[in-house]
């Protein structure tokens, strides 16, 4: 359908549109008109992606000055889904306005691991080894050498791309990663480099968060994006954590050991070069005197390590004298590693700011702050000069340099924490030196500054007013949309008491109480006897889950549960969990029924959908607070309080509730679906937790569903399931949809 929003013709590939989708478009358009950032919350299952794509591409058609839509997703799977939707939209646009006007080029970009088509390299398992394998075949000196010596292997796809592909643009259309690989095979061009080249010409680019937020990657990939771009962060409820992770480094004993080995190897290579090709090292020295800034103009395939700090923080000046010579630099690194090793060898927890850390570092080991700042670039330059291709072997020294550069550059917003062992397992020594970024706004600031409009959207952004403070920006539009439902297909409940009327909670002093454990067990047992097909349970942490499952096993509850449903458990092992999920689905399909035990903040809670019969009920056992004794968390809380005036309790509750909402949101993925959610903890009953739940859950949380005990919850569940099993009336579901005529009517009314 085609309709007009305040003068903008919007092409929407479906015949009907939900009310909230229309409202979303209106708000989004206001934000784009104002050239500002916006923060929009709309529940999952309402077609957020197509709404965004539809409005923004229509906006692009109307305003050709707009450069690009940059759509950031969290996973490759989501990326492919976005591109599929976009293809449908594109076909519709072509039908409506002809293929010449609706010409767009849209493509997904991912790492070499997902795009490589080289028969040998692509069979590597890890991302780093694919990268290294590629570099061995495509580095400029390798190719230069191959020209004279035909025995040296190169990548035919890269050569093909280099010969023709880099000049010829891709024909317009929508390319998923799969399409790119197919196209690459047909032409014999490397899809990865093709895609990287083509994002300059594309109208829509879909890629991972990292490509914009992590300065190490964005420096290479997203450098040339114009200001007139619209950036969308989808599923952005955890965006602050992504930002923080992008700028945080952890060093462990094995990193330092590895770094020492790397340094040793570098020394060997340097001495070999000195004998054979001393001239090269001298050239590099001269280049460094002129400053790092001029070292640009490197060949396309060679820029593979970008600085971990943000663009405007890089000094445009010459590298300090004491690390210009290769052997000096290596010695410098050696001293740094030695110093870090000493710091790591401690019995007490140490917490320091970056300033005091660098000061002690310079007095104790003679490593001055200015030189630290250049470590990463200097290493990059050295590795290039030495023509090192096995970068996967030099990961450890890269990590160390990454750490040194960050520590040397930032004086605020970071903290260094050295812990001799894990709090939870004090008898196992596992020293770790953590450089932890405390300020999520650091990493995202350049994105806000550089681009005209940034859209942050997700199904759960509540409480929505906290995000602008966390990310330190001023959105022009903040809006939370609710879902118009044809029937009450959501049934959230807050269970505060067990079957014996005693309160249940995962609070620290109550969680090991056998009464609470038994009450939780009875709840699960009653529920698996009431709810058909799939049930998902979320626990607050792995250790809590292990403990409670153990107790249930001893009490015999687990055996009783198994009479009704099969039990599957998420583990920290990825392959095992995938297998468990697959079997879980099968058990649901063939009618046996299954329960999945999982952990909030785990892989399953973030990325796996339990829609339709795979998840008729989700039980959240306890409130998933972060581990409050964690030093990093405490440092961050302190920083948030001092800098952004966010109270510790507020932030902790916000974080716990958004995780809980994220978990329970797994069960409902569309309006035709239905599911129940049980928040099993008395603390959810408190208004400060309850009111932080997303609007679309709160609106369904009826008064009589609060403060329940197990038997009442079972009763409600029975009634709900019977009601939902009745065939839905197609007449009623029409009423939440708007057709083209409805929209025209609405547009005619001036005060809508």
């Amino acid at each position: 359908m085609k309709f007009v929003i305040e003068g903008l013709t919007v092409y929407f590939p479906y015949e009907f549109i939900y009310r909230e989708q229309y409202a979303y478009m209106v708000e989004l358009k206001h934000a784009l008109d104002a050239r500002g950032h916006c923060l929009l919350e709309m529940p999952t299952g309402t077609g957020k992606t197509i709404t965004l794509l539809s409005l923004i591409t229509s906006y692009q058609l109307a305003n050709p000055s707009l450069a690009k839509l940059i759509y950031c997703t969290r996973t490759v799977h989501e990326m492919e889904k976005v591109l599929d939707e976009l293809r449908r939209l594109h076909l519709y646009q072509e039908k409506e306005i002809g293929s010449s006007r609706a010409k767009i080029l849209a493509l997904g970009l991912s790492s070499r691991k997902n795009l490589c088509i080289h028969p040998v390299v692509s069979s590597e398992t890890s991302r780093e080894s694919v990268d290294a394998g590629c570099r061995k075949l495509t580095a400029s000196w390798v190719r230069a050498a191959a020209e004279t010596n035909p025995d040296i292997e190169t990548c035919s796809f890269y050569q093909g791309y280099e010969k023709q592909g880099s000049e010829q643009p891709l024909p317009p259309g929508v390319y998923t990663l799969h399409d790119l690989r197919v196209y690459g095979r047909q032409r014999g061009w490397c899809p990865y480099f093709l895609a990287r080249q083509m994002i300059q010409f594309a109208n829509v680019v879909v890629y991972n968060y990292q490509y914009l937020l992590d300065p190490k990657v964005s420096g290479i990939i997203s450098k040339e994006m114009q200001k007139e771009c619209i950036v969308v962060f989808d599923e952005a409820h955890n965006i602050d954590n992504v930002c923080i992770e992008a700028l945080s480094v952890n060093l462990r004993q094995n990193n330092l050991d590895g770094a020492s080995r790397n340094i040793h190897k570098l020394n060997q290579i340097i001495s070999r070069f000195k004998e054979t090709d001393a001239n090269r090292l001298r050239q590099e020295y001269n280049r460094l005197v002129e400053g790092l800034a001029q070292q640009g103009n490197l060949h396309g395939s060679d820029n593979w390590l970008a600085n971990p700090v943000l663009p405007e923080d890089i000094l445009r000046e010459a590298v300090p004298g004491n690390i210009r010579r290769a052997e000096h630099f290596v010695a410098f690194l050696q001293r740094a590693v030695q110093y870090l090793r000493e710091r790591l060898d401690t019995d007490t927890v140490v917490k320091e700011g970056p300033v005091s850390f660098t000061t002690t570092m310079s007095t104790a080991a003679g490593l001055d702050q200015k030189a630290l700042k250049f470590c990463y670039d200097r290493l990059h330059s050295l590795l290039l000069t030495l023509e090192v291709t096995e970068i996967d072997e030099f990961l450890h020294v890269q990590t160390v340099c990454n750490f040194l550069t960050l520590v040397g550059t930032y004086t605020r917003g970071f903290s260094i924490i050295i812990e001799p062992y894990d709090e939870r397992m004090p008898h196992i020594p596992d020293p770790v030196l953590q450089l932890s970024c405390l300020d999520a706004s650091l990493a995202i600031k350049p994105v806000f500054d550089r681009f005209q409009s940034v859209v942050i959207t997700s199904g759960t952004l509540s409480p929505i007013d906290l995000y602008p403070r966390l990310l330190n920006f001023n959105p022009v539009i903040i809006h939370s949309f609710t879902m118009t439902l044809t029937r009450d297909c959501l049934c959230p409940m807050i269970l505060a008491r067990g079957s014996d009327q005693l309160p249940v909670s995962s609070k620290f002093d109550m969680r090991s109480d056998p009464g609470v454990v038994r009450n939780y067990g009875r709840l699960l047992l009653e529920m698996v006897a009431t709810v058909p097909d799939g049930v998902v349970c979320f626990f607050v942490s792995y250790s809590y889950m292990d403990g409670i499952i153990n107790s249930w096993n001893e009490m015999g509850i687990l055996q009783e549960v198994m009479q009704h449903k099969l039990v599957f458990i998420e583990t920290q092992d990825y392959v095992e969990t995938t297998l468990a999920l697959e079997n879980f689905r099968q058990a649901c399909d063939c009618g046996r029924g299954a329960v999945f035990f999982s952990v909030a903040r785990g892989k399953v809670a973030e990325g796996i959908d339990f829609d339709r019969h795979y998840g008729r009920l989700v039980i959240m056992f306890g409130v998933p607070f972060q581990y409050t004794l964690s030093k990093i968390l405490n440092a961050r809380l302190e920083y948030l309080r001092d800098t952004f005036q966010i109270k510790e309790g507020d932030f902790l509750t916000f974080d716990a509730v958004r995780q809980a909402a994220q978990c329970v949101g797994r069960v409902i993925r569309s309006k035709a679906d239905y599911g129940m959610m049980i928040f099993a903890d008395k603390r959810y009953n408190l208004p400060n937790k309850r009111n932080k739940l997303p609007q679309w859950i709160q609106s369904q949380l009826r008064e009589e569903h609060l403060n329940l005990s197990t038997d009442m919850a079972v009763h409600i569940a029975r009634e709900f399931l019977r009601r939902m099993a009745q065939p839905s009336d197609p007449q009623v579901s029409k009423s939440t949809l708007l057709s083209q005529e409805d929209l025209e009517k609405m547009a005619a009314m001036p005060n809508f």
Partner: protein
Amino acid sequence: MEKRSGQGGPAFQEDEEMEEEDKAPDMEAWERAYADDRSWESLIEDESGLLKAGDDVQQQRQHRRRLIQASGPRIQRGIIRYLCLILDFSRAAGEIDFRPSRMAVVAKAVEDFVREYFDQNPLSQLGIIVMKNGIASVVTELSGSPEAHIRALKSNLESFGEASLQNGLELAHTYVQHIPSYGHREVVIVFSALSTCDPGNILETVKKCKAARMKCSVVGLTAEIYICKHISQETGGSYAVAMNEGHLKEILLEHVPPPAAMPDASSASLVRMGFPQRGSEGAVAICACHKELRIGGGYICPRCRARVCELPTECSLCGLALVSSAHLARSYHHLFPIPTFDELLVDASLRGKSSFAGSCFGCRIQLSGGGSLRLRCPRCKRDFCFDCDVYIHESLHNCPGCETLQEEAVT
């Protein structure tokens, strides 16, 4: 002929009356009214906690919606059905969310269903399979006598163990294989459990059932279960979940009217049937079904002269299908149903007008007062009340208005 009809159809009507009389003494009049329609269940609690009586007119509409769905256009229907009733008497059937227990409620509903089934499908047969303790067992073979089914079912009421849909379907599948091709193969599963505990892959069994052209429908008691939905969708059956006892009965009875004929069986084929004579009073014969000496009554197979006790049935000696002509006649209305009546919306503007006054053509009740829908026969344009509409469509199968019109035309 007269005697026979005295023994055939109305026999169970008499039984019902007997039951009514049995019930009456130990239940006072005021109790009885409530026990029958369970009016407390239709009470609705609004937000402020006030109780409101359920909307009568709304309920009537709902009832009619079901009727309308069932009727549709005039279609060829499969009159000769072979229906396998699979009952779930697993542990879940012992739950007491229906009083006194799910199993008792199911048994009662099935009893009504069996009677109604043979009343409306006199040429059809029915067999009962029970799932319990992980296995499926035959309670009654495919046969035609309602009383035998009900008796066997009542002696089999206990619940334990798991339910296995696969075993149930496999057993039904072996049953149906011997059914002649003109017969409709149907399975109705009444399922209390929430899971099925199968020895193998049930999806294979579903495919097999589909290939054997079995139409499997499921009546659930608790919640929507994916596999049940899958079974019914794959095999072209229906799936419904009961909200309460009344609803359970209602959705079970939806399986009573004969289904649309199978598309590939459209070519006419002849079925050999016998119309036996009533044995004379006082004649002594060995009954073929009970294997013992009986005096008087019974019917004599026209082909092999064997004596059988009840109609319709299959002669146990020569295998001939035995029916009475009254049975055939009773199936007639399915082929020529009376049209569904149209609801006239009572508009405030119309209320005063003369065309809207008047009473029900059937029972002369005033229709203008509200409390009942106003329904008009599309053929004779006469108005009826809701109760008469139900009576006409579910019991009478003749429209009084149209009949009088025909009489007028004749005279």
